[in-house]
Structure formats: C-alpha cells, structure tokens
C-alpha cells in the first residue's frame, strides 16, 4: 500500500520520509517517565507543601531538574551506543482511551529528536534553575516561582516525549499554562497581568489550530499516534494533508511567536528574566519548530503547507530583526531577536528534508546562546536596579566583567562570528535556503546582516561608551550562583558548533528527519560562508558608525524615521490583532450581552432592586421579564418548527 503512493512524493524525488517505527519497550537504561516525573514531583511538593517548603524549596526545585538532566544524559549515551535503526524506543504508560478503534495510548517516544530536546530542556533548564536561586533570592514568593518552573519543565518534557498527538496536546496546554503563570508572576504589575492575558488569548488561537489539526488527523487516519499516522500519511489526499499542515502551522505560529501571532512574545518579557531565558528563548517558543519537524511525515506530502511554513519563517525573521533594531529595552531587543532566530528555524523546517536537521541544529545552538544572553541581561538588570532601558547603561564592561565576557560570547555566536556556534548553524540554513529558493535565501542573508546590526547596537549601548546611569545606581557583578551558569552557557555558545563536525547532527537525526538529496549551489559553501560573514560585518560596521562613535542620548529621540517608529510599535502587531481579532470578538460579546440584557435578561437589574427591598418594583420588573423570556421561548419554538419544515420539504 505504501509503494502505490511513491509517485506522490516530494519534488526532490528523494527517499520516502522515514516512518516512526519504534523498537520494543523497556530496552532503555532508565524508565523514560523518570525524566518527567522528577520535575513534576518537585512542582507537586512545592505547590502542595506550602510555606513549610519555603526554606529549601528552591534547592529541591533545582535538584529535580538536575536529576532529570543526569537521566537525559544517561539515556543519550545509551542510544549513542546503538545502531542507527534501533534508536527509536517507545515506552507506553497507560491506555488513556480505549474503545475499539478509538484508542489513545499515552506513551513516550525516545528517538534522536527527543533526545536532543531532552538535553536542551533539562540542561539549559538546570542552569537557569541554578541562576534563579540567586536572581530570585529576595523575592518572597521564590518557592512558588520554582514550583512553576518545575511544572513548566515537566510539561515541556511531556510535549517532546509523547508518542501521540494527544500527548503533545497535553504538554502544549501544560507549557502554555506554566508560561501564563510565569509571565504574570509579578502580579503586582498591571502590565505583567495584561501581558499574561495577551499571551494566553493569542496562544488560544494557536491552540485551536492544534486541536483542529489533531482532530483532522484523527478524522482522517482514525489514530493519533506518530507511528500509525506516519505509516498512513502516504495514502491521504493532498488536500487533507495541506489542511493538516496549515493547521499545525497555525499552532506553531501561536507557540513560537511567528507572524501573524507574534505580538505576545514582546509583552511576555514582563516575566522574570530567568523565565524569559528558559521559556521565551530556549525552550517553549521552539515547540512550534519541534511540532513541524516531528510532523515531517505530514509536511513531506504537502508542498503547499511546507511553502507556507518557509514563507512565514522568512517574514518573521525579517520582522523580528526589524523590531530588534528599534527597541531600547534590552529584553525586548532580545525578544525581537528570538523571534527572528525562530524565524530562521521555521524557514529551515519549511525547506523540507534538506532543512529539518539544520532547524534543530540552530534550535539547540540558539537555546544555549540566547539563554546565555538573556541571563546576561538579567545579570545587568540585577546590577542596575532592574532598569531595562539600554539608554541608561553604557560602559558596563568594567563594572561587570564576567557578565560582559559571557555576553560577548553569546553575541559573537548570534551574529555568526566564524567559529562560534551560531556561525555554523545559521550558515547552513542560509546556504540551504539559497539552494532551494533564491528569494528566501536572500531574505535570510539580509536578516543575518540586520542581526549583526542590532546585536552590535545592543552591545555598544550596554557595555561600551560613556556611563549613562543615575548616581544612585551602583553597577556590580552578580554573585557566583548567577555567573557560573553564564560561564557554562558561554562555553556552549563558543563550542556548540562541534555538533556539525562531520555532519554528525544530520546523520544522528536522519532516522527522524530523513535523508534527501539536497540541491547544490553552483558555488562552494566556503564562498557562501564568506559572503554571509561579509554581510554580517557590514551590519556590525554600520552599528559601530551609528552607536559606537556617537554619544547616545539618555532619552530616546522622537524625530525618528517611520521605520524606527514602526519597529518601536512592534510593527503594529497589536493594532492588527485588535482590528482582526480582539475588536470583532469584543463587539460580538457586547452585542450579544446587550441583546441578552435588553431583550431577554435584565435579571441583574431585577436582582439589585429586589435586594434593595423594593419588592413592588421587583414584582413588576419580574413579570415583564418573564414575559420576554416566554416570548423568546415562543420565538425559539417557531424557529425550531421552521427549521424542521424547511429541512423536510427542502
């Protein structure tokens, strides 16, 4: 049945997309569930234990994630020693639903893809937990913070370990909830509450995509587990596959802040900085990329959806870079850059077999260097009384040497300085994009140049130039518990590129992402690398001309170009969302509510006066309203009859 579908294969005419064919359960060194159970247990103890756990809660929270990381490492070493075709293992936990054909087995799937994610989530997660011990030291609700962080790690692990779309959905909702709780963690700030709400609402749009996508998968294939779906996708019609692909893309856009659902990510920076580093840079926002790569057996059968993925990625990478150029808030600049870098990953994922592995490579590399920079930004804020305006920094490299050095490593990685991890990962994406589609490739190249510009601007405004901080601010280096994670992450930013040595990551991921014949460019990769480096250098140089040599005003200039103004306003993402989503739904609610009050309700008014003891008034009011209720009932009855008659005689 599979052989008959060969002719509907991808344009490249490469091999079949690989099926998810996990081996027997129980052949792992450790029960997989342990990886999830540790942080979940931590969250449970911290949340239920209450104030009794205040004294040691943060230590427990950190210990569970570190334990989880050790397990992940152990598992990883375990599968490294296996032959390539035995690297997919499932362990089923329990049958969630079982009614004949409708069976959902809650199982865990461990394969090269989830192995890398496990290392990223628990590794970066553990470092950020350690960092948070210092960062949140003076917060009275530190225990709760660690509980939420643990909850997040557990949910994220469920997301990447599930062997079933329903399980992914479970994790998807879980990380959404944790992210929501953490963005709004400093609830005393109205802006934090508003940002949390916005993240929630916009993520719901993405979640609808996932629900409908999973629903359509179930409707089409009568199963939602990866292995069964992957075996069946070759038979489905192209239209259905495109619909599934687009719905999954919508889901990815919501979670990964891709155009047009990007606007929540900038506001999400209201959360504590470790949260921004863990959730809104390294892990959760990459869940969309995970979903697309994991669903390669869907996207390989729909060129249309895959093209949409690549285009969305390209648009977002340019938008994110643009926003990054215009912001003065250090965290928002980094958020714009996160958006942009995820755009690169989505672009790579949209390029199909040739790009999946590079998307994951960039994802892992980015997870390290972006977490590094966010934590660095947190360290800067720590030393400057939680100021986030880069115009109030300047000349911090002397006051905070460790932060400066480690941040610089992240900076060099993200702009793609030769030898650093970002150089290797971004280079491969641009190269593949140029080979597949010249326009997308050139956009990606342009993005690299802009990245060089805005990151240099950030560096110059923060660490160089004249000091611009207030007299009562005394910048100081952060404690060791915060700098050591920075140092580790900085090392990873420098040496992360080692994963691509000998195309290791590509080969390692091949059982999941497949191996296809990539297009080859007429010029050598070395030339491309050179071109990319030159473009980045131009960006850096321009930034230096503008910000390194001139004095930077403490107040943001207002007479700026329309481009800057648009960037400062997040490219009007909010306005667009308001017009397209928020406005109409508000009006619908208001309209319905007015109808309900004026025509059939009024109970609230009747109630208020009744409580006031104005029984005579209430009696009259009450009669009137029952009459209108009855009228509504009568009208409804007429409609029902009309519907029946219409259907019957239609």
């Amino acid at each position: 049945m599979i052989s008959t579908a060969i002719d509907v294969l991808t344009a490249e005419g490469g091999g079949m997309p690989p099926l998810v064919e996990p081996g027997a359960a129980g052949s792992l060194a450790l029960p997989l569930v342990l990886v999830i159970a540790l942080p979940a247990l931590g969250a449970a103890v911290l949340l239920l234990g209450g104030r009794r756990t205040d004294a040691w809660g943060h230590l427990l929270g950190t210990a569970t994630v570190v334990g989880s990381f050790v397990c992940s490492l152990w598992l990883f070493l375990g599968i490294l020693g296996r032959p390539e075709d035995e690297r997919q293992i499932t362990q089923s936990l329990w049958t969630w639903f079982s009614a004949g054909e409708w069976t959902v087995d809650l199982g865990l799937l461990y394969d090269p893809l989830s192995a890398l994610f496990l290392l990223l989530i628990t590794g970066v997660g553990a470092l950020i937990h350690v960092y948070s011990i210092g960062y949140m030291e003076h917060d009275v609700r530190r225990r709760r913070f660690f509980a939420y962080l643990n909850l997040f790690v557990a949910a994220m692990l469920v997301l990447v370990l599930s062997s079933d779309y329903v399980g992914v959905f479970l994790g998807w909702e879980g990380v959404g909830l944790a992210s929501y709780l953490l963005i709004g963690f400093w609830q005393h700030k109205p802006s934090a509450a508003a940002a949390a709400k916005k993240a929630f609402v916009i993520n719901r749009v993405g979640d609808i995509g996932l629900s409908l996508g999973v629903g359509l998968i179930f409707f089409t294939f009568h199963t939602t587990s990866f292995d069964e779906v992957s075996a069946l996708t070759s038979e489905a019609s192209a239209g259905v596959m495109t619909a599934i692909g687009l719905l999954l893309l919508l889901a990815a856009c919501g979670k990964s802040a891709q155009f047009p659902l990007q606007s929540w990510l900038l506001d999400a920076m209201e959360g504590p900085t470790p949260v921004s580093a863990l959730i809104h840079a390294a892990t959760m926002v990459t869940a969309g990329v995970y979903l697309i790569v994991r669903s390669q057996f869907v996207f390989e059968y729909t060129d249309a959806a895959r093209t949409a993925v690549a285009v969305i990625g390209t648009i977002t990478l340019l938008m994110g870079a643009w926003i990054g150029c215009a912001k003065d808030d250090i965290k928002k600049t980094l958020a714009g850059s996160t958006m942009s870098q995820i755009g690169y990953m989505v672009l790579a994922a949209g390029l199909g077999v040739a790009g999946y592995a590079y998307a994951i490579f960039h994802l892992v590399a980015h997870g390290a260097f972006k977490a590094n920079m966010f934590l660095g930004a947190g360290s800067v804020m720590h030393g400057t009384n939680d100021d986030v305006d880069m115009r109030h920094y300047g000349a911090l490299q002397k006051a905070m040497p460790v932060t400066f050095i480690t941040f610089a490593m992240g900076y060099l990685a993200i702009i793609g300085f030769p030898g650093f991890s970002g150089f290797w990962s971004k280079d491969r994406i641009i190269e593949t994009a140029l080979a597949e589609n010249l326009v997308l490739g050139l956009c990606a190249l342009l993005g690299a140049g802009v990245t060089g510009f805005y990151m240099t601007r950030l560096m110059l405004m923060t660490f160089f130039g004249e000091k611009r901080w207030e007299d009562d601010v005394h910048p100081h280096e952060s404690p060791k518990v915060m700098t050591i994670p920075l140092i580790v992450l900085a090392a990873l930013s420098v040496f992360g590129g080692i994963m691509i040595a000998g195309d290791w990551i590509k080969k390692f991921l091949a059982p999941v992402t497949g191996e296809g014949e990539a297009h080859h460019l007429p010029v050598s990769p070395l030339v491309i690398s050179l071109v990319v480096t030159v473009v980045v250098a131009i960006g850096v140089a321009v930034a230096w001309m503008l910000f390194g040599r001139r004095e930077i005003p403490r107040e943001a200039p207002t007479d700026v170009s329309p481009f800057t103004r648009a960037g400062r306003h997040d490219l009007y993402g909010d306005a667009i969302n308001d017009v397209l989503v928020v406005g109409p739904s508000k009006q619908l609610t208001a309209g319905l509510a007015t109808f309900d009050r004026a025509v059939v309700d009024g109970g609230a008014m009747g109630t208020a006066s009744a409580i006031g003891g104005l029984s005579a008034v209430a009696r009259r009011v009450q009669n009137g309203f029952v009459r209108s209720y009855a009228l509504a009932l009568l009208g409804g009855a007429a409609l029902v009859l009309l519907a029946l008659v219409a259907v019957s005689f239609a």
Partner: protein
Amino acid sequence: MTGFQAPNVEWLTLSPLLVVFLAAVVGVLVEAFVPRAQRYAVQVGLSLAAMVGTLVASLVVFARLSPTADEAELGRVVAAGAVAADGPAVFTWVLLSVLGLLSVMLFAERKVESGVLTFAGQAAALPGTEAEREASTRGLSHTEVFPLMLFAIGGMMLFPASNDLLTMFVALEVLSLPLYLLCGLARRRRLLSQEAAMKYFLLGAFSSGFFVYGLALVYGYAGSMGFAQIAAAVSADTGSRALLLGGIGLMSVGLLFKVGAAPFHAWTPDVYQGAPTAVTAFMAAATKVAAFGAMLRLFYVAFGGNRDDWLPMVWAVAILTMVVGSVLAISQTDVKRMLAYSSIAHAGFLLTGFLGIRSLDEVAPGGLTGVSAVLFYLTTYGFTTMAAFAVVSIVRDAGGETTHLARWQGLGKESPLVAGVFAFLLLAMAGIPLTSGFTGKWAVFAAATAAGAWPVVVVAVLMSAVAAYFYVRVIVLMFFAEPVGDGPSVAVPSALTTVVIAVGTLVTLVLGIVPGALIELLGNVGVFIR
C-alpha cells in the same frame, strides 16, 4: 370489548424507582408526625438510606441486565410497556443515585449557616417581615426539602427510562414541580430566590405546554403513545408528515428547555443564580442527566426513523447553544451566573455528542455511539459541576454566599486549598487534558466526527477555546488579584460538603486519567431497546 388483563409488574427491575418514591412518601409522613426537633436527623437518615438503597438496587438491576432476543441489546421493557429498563436507562439510574446521594449531603449541610439548613426557615413568611425574623431566631428549617428532592430524583430516574409519551410527560412533571419549589427556598436573598422560582415555574409550565401539545400531535400521527409503535409508524411513513414534524418540533422545545439549550436558555442564569446553591448543584448535575437521557431515548427510539428531518435542527441548536453559552459567559460578573452560562455551553457540547452515530451496526467496532458519548460526558460533567457549586456554597461573607466575582479576588491567598480545587474544576470544565472535561469532550467530539458532523465539532473546538478564557479569568482573579476589603472567607463546612467536593474532584481527576473502563462499559450498554 376484551376483558381486562392485569399487567405484570416487574418489582425487582422497578425497585430503584420504587425505593425513591416510597422514601419520599414516608418523608412526607415524617413531616406530619415526627416532632420538629428530630425531623432533621430522621429526614437526612431516611434520604441517605433511600439513595444508598436505590444505588444498590440500580446496581443489582444493572448487573442483571440480560440481552434481548437479537443479542445486541441489553435489558427489557417492563410495567406493561411504560418503562424500558435497558442499558442506558439503568446507567442513568446508577448515575442519578450517586449524584442524588451527593445532593442529599449538600442539602443537609448545616455548619456553614451555624446550625440551620441553607434553606428558608419559614418559606411562607414574607421576606423582611417580623414572621421571617421570628422563624430565623427560633432556628427553624424546612426539612421538607428532603422529600421534595426525593420526588425530583424519582422523576428524573423515570424520565430517561420512560417508554411511552404519557410516562415521559408524567416523569417530566414529577421532576419539575419539586424543583420549582426548591428554587424558591433560599435562606438568604429570598426575593431573588423567589423570583427565580417564579420564573422557572412560569417558563417551565409554558414549555411543558409545548411538550404536551407536541405529544398530542405525535399521538395523532402514530395513533399510539408507545415509542415502539411510534417508531414503526415513522418507519412506515404513514399519516400526515405535518403532524409528525409539528410534534417533534414542539416536544423538542420542551426537552431543550429542560437541558437549557439556546434559544430556550433564558431562564438558566436567573434560576441558577437565585436558587439555593445546593439546589443549583443538584439541578445542574442531575436535571441535565435526566433530560438528556430522555431526549436521547425520544429521538433515537421514537423518531430514529426520520433522523434526517430533525438532525439539521439539532445541528443548529447545538451550534447556537455553544456560541451563546461561551460568549455570554465572558461578560458575567457573578460566579453562579457564569457557571450557568457555562452549563449552557456544556449543553451545546452534549448536543454535539447527540449527533453521534445511533446504532452499533454503523459504528466502528467497539467505537462510541452518540448515546455512549453523551452518557460519558454527563458523568464527567455531573460530578465536576456538583463539586464546583459545592465550593461556591462555602465561600461566604457576613451576608451569606458571596457570588460576585469581585469578591472572589485573592481567594488563593485566603484559602489556597479551596481556590486550588475550584481552579482544578474550572480547568476540567475548560477541557484541559488530564481532567475528565478533556476526555468527555474527546468522547463527544469523536462520536460526532464519526457521524460526519464535523462542522459542529469545529465550532465546538472554537468555543471550547473561547470558554477556556473565562474559566481562566476566574483562576487569575483568585490567585493573581489582591483581595478587596476584608476579602472572601471560606466557611469550614461539615464533613458532608467536604465529602461532596472531594468525591466530585476525585472523579474529575480519575476520569481524566483512566477513563478507559467507563468508556468500555458504556460501549457495551449503549443501545436503547424499544
């Protein structure tokens, strides 16, 4: 004229109903003869015993269900064709017994009102008069609520099991009349409560009128009250279609009113808000079970033959109900009203399951029929909503329950446990995975999708996303907002309410994690007999 044949009455099969009704009648006698001081204890004991008794009897009947002639169906028609004791009916008996048992516990709660029931001390006394104050100072309580509730439960159990139009109508009235009364018996905010009872009564009577008119038309069409005969007439397509369609339309108005589907939902918020919270909990959980059970039987058994005629109407009602419930809930500022609109939305989700496949032959092996899916959803929703209202009943201030949402701000600080439980229940209603709300939604959506009703399912998914918004808003309010003024306080309830909350929450959790056994059970019972 043929001689009269005394009908055979299957006492054992009918025992769950008989136990409840007998206990209710005895309860009336208790009110007449037992001195006031001992009535509470006697009534509570009697009601608890009755509910446990009917639970045991229902389980026995359930275990003894035997296949009918054609093997696929379980159960049999008893009481001269008036009652069908088949799988779905007996399952609702079991479910209603458990929900009824929990309701008795909620009704019996006295600790939160410092020693008296949460029902009016003297319902006949005008609010705000000397007589009312006197009743209050003497610590009077209307223990009549217990027999009233038992009558309602008896009606509810008969409703989905009734196998002819007349029995169905009688059951409808037996379940409705005590509810109208119970709604007006709140101890606090009595005018609001009486207003609710009045509205519910008038509109309920109005909708009963529709139901009975439709019943007459269907009788005119089929020439019989029995569902089997009606089904035969529908299949043979004899008689006037106008009569049949009119009958279906008007009867569905009566039933859709009871389940609170739009556009017949207008009473729900007012009544849920005004009624004593224990009664609201009972109504929200048990009435839905009974009304949906009856609706399934009427439409699947009697009108199964012309499914194509009424299916589009149910599509439209389901979509409208979900939209109205979910969207209007957003703008609510009162917890009970919000839960009322949420119950409207849930009626829409249940109607989605109603669109599922009817017979086992068409469904994929072991798959879910519409009946199984709806019964499963009813189980999940019944326990969740009962626990949620039980929580509402213990969040109080000096004026009684504080249901205004603004007063719930910062409840998470005041009582993390209660707020946490309530948050969990709200998440379940929102359909977040690992709660029964998710598995329930999954079941009805899967059943509807399999029957090709995917547009309704798409709306349902969209609306669950909208609905999640207002549930989470309450959670945020409880945990992320500073308390206003003194803030809410949580009354420490007696073991009775605690048990209700604990059981409801536990079932919500368990059915969310391991729903398999129940789904499988429902897959095996899920067919009506005629």
